[in-house]
């Protein structure tokens, strides 16, 4: 029965959406909504003393844009597990810092990074933390704190043979993914924000969460470098 339920779910997903990116259309409540996150990246870019964040939302046409009532919030945990060694019983990952973005008119306005006054699902914007804005589609601006910011339409860089994934998950063919694939995201576009943030604004990174997990298991640690724990949310104005 479990297998049948799983097949049904995935079959419905395959019919409902031709494109599911890393997070595109991942759940019914956000399907075809302009709160649907397409993708999230965090990496060391051109500047080794900064961390680059990219958040993208699906862009179905050149006319699509960021919603003026949907705030994009990048969350940064820079303290890690509260009780090292107790993971996962006491995880403690929390939004120690946030960077917020909200479009108004032809500009994207940015705030932070700052410690939010609430770590729940509900957030407000502290306008005292404003760091500047960029015109949507412009090459980008240097904001307060040396943060390099961009907002506008870009190509979707994600790649995944999503149709074959659905086939594998749904009918378990003997060949699995086989030996060839088709990128379901070829030609897709996104509305993206890009933020290159000096690490000094993000605090000291904690012990890597995977090593905290290993320590909690009493297993040898991997020896990974200290790392922030980051994630992104879209939040709609009530």
């Amino acid at each position, binding site marked *: 029965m479990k297998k049948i339920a799983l097949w049904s779910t995935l079959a419905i997903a395959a019919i409902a959406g031709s494109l599911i990116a890393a997070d595109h259309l*991942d759940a019914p409540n*956000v399907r075809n909504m302009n709160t649907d996150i397409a993708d*999230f990246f965090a990496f060391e870019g051109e500047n080794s003393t900064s*961390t680059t964040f990219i958040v993208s939302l699906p862009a179905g046409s050149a006319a699509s844009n960021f919603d003026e009532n949907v705030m994009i919030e990048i969350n940064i945990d820079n303290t890690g597990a509260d009780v090292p060694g107790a993971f996962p019983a006491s995880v403690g990952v929390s939004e120690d810092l946030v960077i917020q973005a909200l479009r108004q008119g032809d500009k994207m306005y940015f705030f932070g990074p700052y410690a939010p006054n609430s770590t729940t699902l509900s957030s407000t914007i502290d306008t005292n933390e404003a760091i500047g804005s960029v015109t949507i589609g412009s090459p980008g601006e240097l904001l307060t704190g040396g943060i390099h910011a961009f907002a506008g339409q870009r190509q979707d860089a994600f790649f995944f043979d999503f149709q074959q994934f659905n086939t594998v998950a749904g009918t378990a063919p003997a060949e699995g993914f086989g030996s060839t*694939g088709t990128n379901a995201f070829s030609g897709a576009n996104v509305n993206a924000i890009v933020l290159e943030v000096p690490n000094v604004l993000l605090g000291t990174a904690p012990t890597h969460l995977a090593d905290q997990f290993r320590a909690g298991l009493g297993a040898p640690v991997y020896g990974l470098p200290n790392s922030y724990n980051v994630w992104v949310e879209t939040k*709609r104005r009530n």
Partner: protein
Amino acid sequence: MAVAVVATLTVSCSDDDNPVTGQPATTDFSGTFTTQDQMGRPGINTVLSGSDANKNNFNITTPANQIAAFSGEFNNTLGAYYAAYGASFENNILGLDQAQTTAVLSLDVLQVSPDAPTSYFTSTSSFLTGRTLEDDVIDVSLIVLFGGNTGARFDGNNGTPNLISDNVSQEMGTSTSTFPYLTAAQF
């Protein structure tokens, strides 16, 4: 006259968006904003949340609560993928068993190191230091889920299904090494 000028300015300020610049008369950052969607690592909710209700709930569960709320569900989903192939999980390349793997993945946050080169996975001693635009995150996820302790279990050889690669690579020209790293949209 002065009064008339003030009145005119007031009217123009309360107009709708300026048709030339698209700039609104005012900006509004007030109010409370409530979570609709969230994401850390790629593909987690899509692949491991079993039902629509769980997919919705996963998007509005704060990370601190995700392991408690979803590791069991993720474990069941992964077990069902294996059952469909008449197989069972064996410890993966990170040395994790099925329950540990799904516990780690149910905490959907991305690690990024400020002091090391970024890679979603390079080797068993160098991984999860971030996610670049070029990282083949789907293959990495499949290897962690289906690759066994060598990373090559279910690689399509010796009569096994290929469950560790979707055989696609990044589309040429969708990313660059310079800010803003993504190339211009093409409709």
